[in-house]
């Protein structure tokens, strides 16, 4: 019974392997929306077989997973959800945890992360934690730069935002994939809003900050440290709260790769989540530009982890995966900073790139290590015995021919060369000898190895 179970498991695993690796090879390029959900379904089934969660019945499967999957924003999860509700698959909690983790990377709520509750005078702004503040309306035009936010450093020639006097500007932050300038060595940069030592909003400037991947950028937002207000791994975004609906970065142009709101992806990755409380409002992340970080998040003197980088530059190829048009996720304007090209390496791109890469069944399976291993068998004793026998026969094998025998006889008269031709009967019977040898060899081989075939039992 146990052996049958083992055999069944092997067969199932083989079927999954072939269905996952070989069958979709031609289809993967054609329609990712078909292949990726199918791959997820197969993976889910595999994980269930491997010991995933067991539900009581099909209704329970549907009820539980529908509730969980209802938070999913993408078509991929809708496909999974449909399959789960229909009872097509059962999903293990391991797989679900992974899905849930991805879902949580999309965050949204009704508030902003930086909501300063001081309507008129930012210089009197008192804050201990950003989470305790709610909103700030700043009359533009009273600043020292005449209503312009200027990037003094890297983008000094480009990053000028001009707003009209009387516009109300509310600073928010949309965490944006940071930039990696091409190397070597590659330089990772993120955007910050630096609050100069002068009080108030008169000198908020864009700047950039280099960092090392994996090392958090420190936040210094306490009341005693106001030189850097926001030091966060993302791009600051402006939301104009005039009569129109809030928009993100409506007039911020040509700041590196942030050419417009339509080609920016807002991704959050606040990994130290002691107070993190994400609420997804049901909107598509990439189509809802009003998404914000949860306001209850306490940013005082915290370290914010850098969003994980990815090797890809765009997510164009996986646009359908998250229900957006190709190119919407990526940064369309791959401009350069000086002579150095900029690469968008955001976490969402990273996630999608990794997902696509994981299910990319078009990549070749490398059998070279197996070939080298097989070669080692041919020369290692005692596994080499079959090849030794083969080599022994090969060493004796050559093209048969029957040439005359020649020699020299020595006599008192001197050396006498002699050439002896083969008798005709030898030539006549040579084929008989060869055939007879093969017959005897074959019969002898069978008898010599009859134990191998059970003949001795």
């Amino acid at each position, binding site marked *: 019974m146990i052996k049958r179970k083992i055999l069944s498991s092997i067969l199932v695993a083989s079927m999954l392997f072939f269905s996952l690796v070989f069958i979709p090879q031609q289809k993967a390029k054609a329609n990712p929306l078909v292949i990726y959900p199918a791959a997820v379904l197969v993976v889910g089934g595999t994980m269930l077989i491997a010991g995933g969660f067991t539900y009581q019945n099909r209704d329970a499967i549907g009820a539980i997973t529908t509730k969980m999957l209802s938070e999913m924003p993408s078509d991929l999860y809708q496909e999974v959800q449909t399959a789960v509700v229909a009872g097509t698959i059962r999903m293990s909690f391991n797989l679900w945890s992974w899905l849930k983790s991805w879902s949580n990377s999309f965050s949204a709520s009704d508030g902003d992360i930086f909501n300063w509750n001081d309507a008129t005078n930012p210089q009197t702004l008192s804050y201990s934690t950003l989470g305790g503040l709610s909103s700030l309306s700043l009359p533009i035009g009273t600043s020292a730069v005449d209503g312009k936010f200027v990037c003094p450093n890297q983008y000094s020639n480009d990053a000028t935002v001009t707003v009209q006097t009387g516009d109300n500007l509310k600073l928010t932050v949309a965490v944006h994939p940071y930039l990696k300038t091409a190397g070597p060595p590659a330089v990772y940069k993120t955007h910050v809003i630096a609050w100069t030592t002068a009080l108030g909003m008169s000198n908020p400037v864009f700047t950039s900050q280099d960092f090392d991947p994996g090392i958090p950028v420190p936040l210094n937002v306490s009341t005693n440290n106001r030189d850097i207000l926001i030091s966060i791994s993302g791009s600051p975004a402006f939301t104009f709260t005039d009569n129109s609906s809030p928009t993100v970065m409506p007039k911020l142009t040509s700041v590196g790769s942030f050419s417009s709101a339509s080609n920016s992806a807002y991704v959050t990755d606040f990994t130290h989540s002691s107070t993190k409380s994400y609420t997804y409002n049901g909107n598509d992340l990439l189509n809802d530009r009003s998404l914000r970080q949860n306001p209850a998040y306490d940013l005082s003197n915290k370290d914010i982890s850098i969003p994980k980088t990815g090797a890809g530059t765009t997510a164009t190829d996986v646009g359908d995966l998250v229900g957006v048009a190709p190119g919407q996720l990526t940064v369309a304007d791959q401009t350069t900073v000086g002579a150095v090209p900029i690469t968008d390496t955001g976490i969402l791109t990273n996630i999608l790139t990794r997902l696509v890469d*994981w*299910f990319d069944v078009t990549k*070749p399976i490398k059998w070279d*290590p197996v070939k080298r291993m097989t070669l080692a068998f041919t020369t*290692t*004793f005692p596994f080499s015995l079959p090849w030794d*026998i083969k080599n022994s026969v090969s060493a004796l094998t050559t*093209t*048969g021919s029957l040439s005359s025998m020649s020699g020299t006889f020595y006599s008192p008269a001197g050396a006498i060369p002699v050439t002896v031709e083969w008798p005709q009967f030898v030539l006549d019977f040579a084929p008989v000898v*060869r055939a007879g040898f093969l017959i005897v060899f074959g019969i002898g081989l069978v008898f010599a190895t009859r134990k191998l075939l059970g003949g001795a039992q």
Partner: protein
Amino acid sequence: MIDLINAVISGLASAVTGILALLPQSPFSWDVSGLSSYLATINYFVPFSAVGTMLYSYVTAVLAYYAIRWLLRLVKYIE
């Protein structure tokens, strides 16, 4: 996923190759150069080429027989 499969293949192959490295090399040497002037004549009467082909086919057949017998025993079709 393919990367994972490749990593598994590479890891298993490296492990097996490492174990094989602990074993001795084949002790046999088949240097028959001393018979080179007679090999053509010997091969005229003794078809070593055909013998080699027969050996190769026979070993392949025996291995296939063992593989099939193992599978059948695994599923209890035979004892």
